[in-house]
Structures are given as structure tokens and as C-alpha cells.
């Protein structure tokens, strides 16, 4: 593969720099406890949103229930650590894997039957599924007492901090980028572009829609599992319809089909939301929701294609295959008549 530079290396170096910077700010106390909490939340949300990005941004499947997989991952992982792990790192790894698998398995089971539905119908089927999961989580304590039910699950352990979260976020970005730039990834994207044409070109659309759905569910499950090891308790209301809306907003506002967009918007959105709480102070706290809503409408009105609609930052783009003289540039832009 002809490359101007090794993109993977650039991403890693860039990540190391960002990590170093943030770590320094944390260690010197410039990023206080409160903002560390927010930073961690932003990273977890990014991973969850990347899951929906695969499903909707790249595969074009309109899923309104992503929080369900997020929640399943959180509760599965949390329960394991609470019941068996008790802070043991091996169990912790197991819990993360279990949470990710929970997201993947549940996506597979629900995805196989419903992915054949057309866009709007798929939307409400996934929405309905999300609500079912919320109701189940609210009543989970009747079956498995430690899960806590509507009051929430307590007794979780803080085992994950900025370092691990940063690592997992960068890892998730790599997973998504690598997948999208591969052959199965191209199959997935072709389905978004034109499902009938993809079918006619030999792509097993059912298989690849399911694959994208499962990968997306797995990532969101991982995000949930990490959440369960960062915060002291889980509440079903953190994994409900509103959270699914959050993920959707992030993926759309960031620009469908853009990893850069999803990451930037996820982090920006969390900071904006929490930042408003900070900035507005106690007396205007009520206005937070109003500002959030107005901002949302304004942004989508001004930029319907999203911030990074379909575009990626340089080092996340697929490497160029053309010899330098033939790369699209001013001289070649008139494209000729050809033929």
C-alpha cells in the first residue's frame, strides 16, 4: 500500500501527545476532580457513540435503541465485579469481556430478525427494544437481587480511570477505522449507499448488516462495562431512551460516516452539557436543558450534514493509492471526458 506516511504511527504519536498533555494537566491539578469526572464520562460516551456510528453512520441502519446495549454491558460487567470480582483485576478483565459480549450477543439476537425492516420501521423497532430493556432493568431486582432495580445497582468499584479510558478510546477508534477501511467495511458502507445495488454486486446484505450491528453493540457494551467500573452505582435511567437520543445526536451532529465527527462531537457534547452546569451557576441551572435544546436545533439548521459530514481528519482517511502525479488536484479536477 503506497502511503505518504504511516498513518497508524501518526495516530499513535498523536494519541501519546494528547495523553501526555492531559495527564500533565491532571497531575498538576489544573484539571480538578470535577472535570476529571467529566473527561472520563466524555471518553466513555465516545466509545458508546462509536458503536452507533458503525451501525448508523457507516451502515445506514437507523437504530434508536443503542442505550440498550450500553446498559446491558454496564449491568453485566457491574454484576460480575460486584458478585465475584470484588476488585480483582483478572475478574475485572473478565467483566469487561462479558460486558462487551453481552452487547454483542444481545445485538445479534435482536438484530437478526429486525434488520430486514425498512428505515423508519427499524427505528421504532429498536426504540421499542430500548424501552423493553429499560423496563427489564427497572425490574431486574425481582429476578437477580443484586442488580438493584429502579433504585439502581450499588456496590460498584472504581477501577477505571483516565489512563485506561484513554487507552480504550484510542483502541476503539482504531477498531472502527480498521474495520471501515477493510473489505468487510466496504461491504458495510456499500449497503448504506445502495442496498439493492450492493446485493446485486454480490454482497450478502443480511450478513453484513448483522455484522455491523453486532460490532456496534459490542462497542457500546464495552462502554457500558467501563462505565460500571468508573461510577459507584448504576441507574436504569442512565441507559434509557434519552441516552439513545444522546448517542444519535452525537453521531448525526458529528456527521454520518465520520469517525472524527463522532469523537469530536461526543467529547464536545459532554463537556458542553456539563460545562453549562458549571457556567450557569445554581440560579440558572434550570436553563441548561433549554440551552441544550436550542443549541441542538440551531446547529442542525446551520449544518444539516453535521460538523464533519462524511469527512475525516487527514490521518484517519484511507491512504491514497494513486501515484503523487495522479492525485486529485487542481490540474485534474476538470476530470476530462474519458472513454
Amino acid at each position, binding site marked *: *500500500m503506497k502511503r505518504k506516511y504511516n498513518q*497508524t504511527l501518526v495516530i499513535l504519536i498523536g494519541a501519546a501527545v494528547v495523553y501526555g498533555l492531559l495527564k500533565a494537566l491532571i497531575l498538576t491539578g489544573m484539571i480538578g476532580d470535577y472535570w476529571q469526572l467529566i473527561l472520563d464520562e466524555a471518553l466513555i460516551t465516545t466509545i458508546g457513540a462509536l458503536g452507533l456510528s458503525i451501525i448508523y453512520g457507516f451502515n445506514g441502519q437507523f437504530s434508536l435503541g443503542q442505550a440498550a446495549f450500553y446498559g446491558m454491558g454496564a449491568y453485566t460487567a457491574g454484576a460480575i465485579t460486584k458478585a465475584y470480582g470484588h476488585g480483582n483485576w483478572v475478574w475485572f478483565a473478565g467483566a469487561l469481556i462479558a460486558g462487551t459480549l453481552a452487547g454483542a450477543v444481545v445485538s445479534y439476537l435482536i438484530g437478526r430478525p429486525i434488520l430486514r425492516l425498512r428505515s423508519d420501521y427499524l427505528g421504532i423497532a429498536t426504540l421499542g427494544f430500548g424501552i423493553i430493556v429499560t423496563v427489564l432493568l427497572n425490574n431486574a431486582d425481582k429476578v437477580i437481587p443484586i442488580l438493584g432495580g429502579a433504585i439502581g445497582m450499588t456496590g460498584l468499584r472504581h477501577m477505571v480511570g483516565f489512563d485506561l479510558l484513554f487507552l480504550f478510546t484510542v483502541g476503539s477508534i482504531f*477498531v472502527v477505522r*480498521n*474495520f471501515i477501511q*477493510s*473489505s*468487510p*467495511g*466496504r*461491504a458495510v*458502507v*456499500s449497503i448504506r*449507499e*445502495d442496498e*439493492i*445495488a*450492493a*446485493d*446485486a*454486486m*454480490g*454482497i*450478502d*446484505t443480511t450478513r453484513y448488516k448483522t*455484522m455491523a450491528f453486532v460490532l456496534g453493540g459490542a462497542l457500546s457494551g464495552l462502554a457500558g462495562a467501563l462505565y460500571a467500573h468508573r461510577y459507584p452505582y448504576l441507574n436504569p435511567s442512565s441507559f434509557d431512551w434519552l441516552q439513545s437520543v444522546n448517542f444519535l445526536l452525537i453521531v448525526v451532529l458529528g456527521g454520518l*460516516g465520520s469517525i472524527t465527527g463522532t469523537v469530536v462531537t461526543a467529547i464536545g457534547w459532554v463537556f458542553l452539557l456539563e460545562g453549562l452546569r458549571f457556567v450557569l451557576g445554581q440560579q440558572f441551572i434550570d436553563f441548561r436543558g433549554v440551552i441544550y435544546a436550542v443549541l441542538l436545533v440551531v446547529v442542525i439548521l446551520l449544518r444539516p450534514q453535521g460538523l464533519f459530514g*462524511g469527512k475525516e481528519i487527514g490521518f484517519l482517511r484511507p491512504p*491514497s*493509492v*494513486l501515484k503523487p502525479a*495522479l*492525485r*486529485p488536484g487542481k490540474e*485534474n479536477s476538470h*476530470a*476530462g*471526458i*474519458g*472513454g
Partner: protein
Amino acid sequence: MPVLEVRGLSKDFGGLKAVNNFNLTLEEGEIVGLIGPNGAGKTTVFNLITGIFPVTSGEIRFLDRSILGLKPYKIAQLGIARTFQNIRLFKQCSVLDNVRTVFHPKIKYGLVDAILHTRRYHAEEERVTAMSMALLETMSLADRAEMQAMNLPYGDQRRLEIARALAGEPKVLLLDEPAAGMNPSEVGKLVELIRFIRNHFQVTILLIEHQMGVVMNVCERLEVLDFGETIAAGRPEEIRDNPKVLEAYLGKGVTVA
């Protein structure tokens, strides 16, 4: 052995008989034209052959094997490729990716290699990219490989669709109005292109077309459809003066001076 055999093909759309008892035999290497007035059922025949619509009755045999009831992607993988009347490219994808996608069924690495970008991934990607670029080269699109498909001029989009169909190394190529929207000079180049494709890629071609400039110059024989039924078949010179064909296109009572 004929490459494609269609016998007694019929399609009902709840009362409307779109295709009625259609028969066709394609021998290897032929270029056959499927013509007829608008609404005659030509694209429906394509959709039936490629598995997009289920058949009401009849038989379709490809390389002496029935392909009835197979899903479109399976039929494509077996070796029947097509283009679409309204151009269905993967618009936001690059020209190169439109072609590379079609190599997917033949790719020799799996999901794990894909996510980890292993050595096998890189080797296969290089192979597929090289093959795709070579294909684009023959269709004069290689210099625009990284352009988004939707930014190509119309004629190039049609050529890209053909290139994409060829990427699957098909034995049969179904072209649905490849000359639509083209001016006379482009039509001339298309005729050469179709002949070149048949010779270079060794495919059998069935094409739907309205432009007589293409039909008369490149098709070796024609099947004429009207209201879902074959009304005439034969060599282009025979068909041109066939009164039934003229009536189908121009209506009763029109004579050709």
C-alpha cells in the same frame, strides 16, 4: 451448452402480467439486445434473472443450473452481473471503492485480520487494489480513482457502473440502457466499449437499449418485447423492417417510407 437459458418466464404483479412466457437462450460470447417500447417488461426480465423479484412461473438456468429462488447476491457471486437503468453507484464512495467492494466475496481475509490490519490484510488489499486499478485503467477511470462517484460526469458514471459490474468477473453481463442520456459521439464510443468488453473480459452480454445506434451496431441478434411478450426475434436487419415491431413502437397505421 448455452450460458443462460430462460424458459416460460412469467411475472404477475397482482393482476398485471408484466412478463408473459418469455424465452431466451444466450450462447457464450454473444451480444444480444432486448428491445421494446417503454413498459414492455425488459427491466423486469433483468430483475427476475438477477433474483430481485421472485418469479411467478418459468425456469432460469445459468450454466445448466437452476438459479430460481436464489438471493441476488448469490446469483451475482455465481457470475451474473448487471447495471441499472437509473445508475445505482455507491455515490459517496470513491471510484476505486465502488470497484473494490465487488471483490469482497473473493477476499482472502476475515474479520479479525480486518480489525487488526494483519500482514494478510495488507497483502490482500494490495492485490485487490491492483486488480481494481487495472480494471479502472481499461475503462479510462483510473486517474479519477479517489474521486467520489457522485462527482463524476454522467457518462463516466455509466462507465463506472459497468466497471463495477465487471469486477465480479461475471460470465454474463446485463446492461440496462447503458446509452441513456448519451450524445452521438459518446454512443459511438459505447459501441466500441461493449465490443471490447466482450472480447477482453470474455463475457456474454444481454443489453436493454432504446438507442438504435447501439442496438443495430453492436447486437448480434435481438429479442423484441411488448406488453411482456416476445413479439419478434432475429437479426437486427430482420427486426428493423418487421411490421409487428414497428407497430409496437410507433402504433398502428404508420408506414415507413
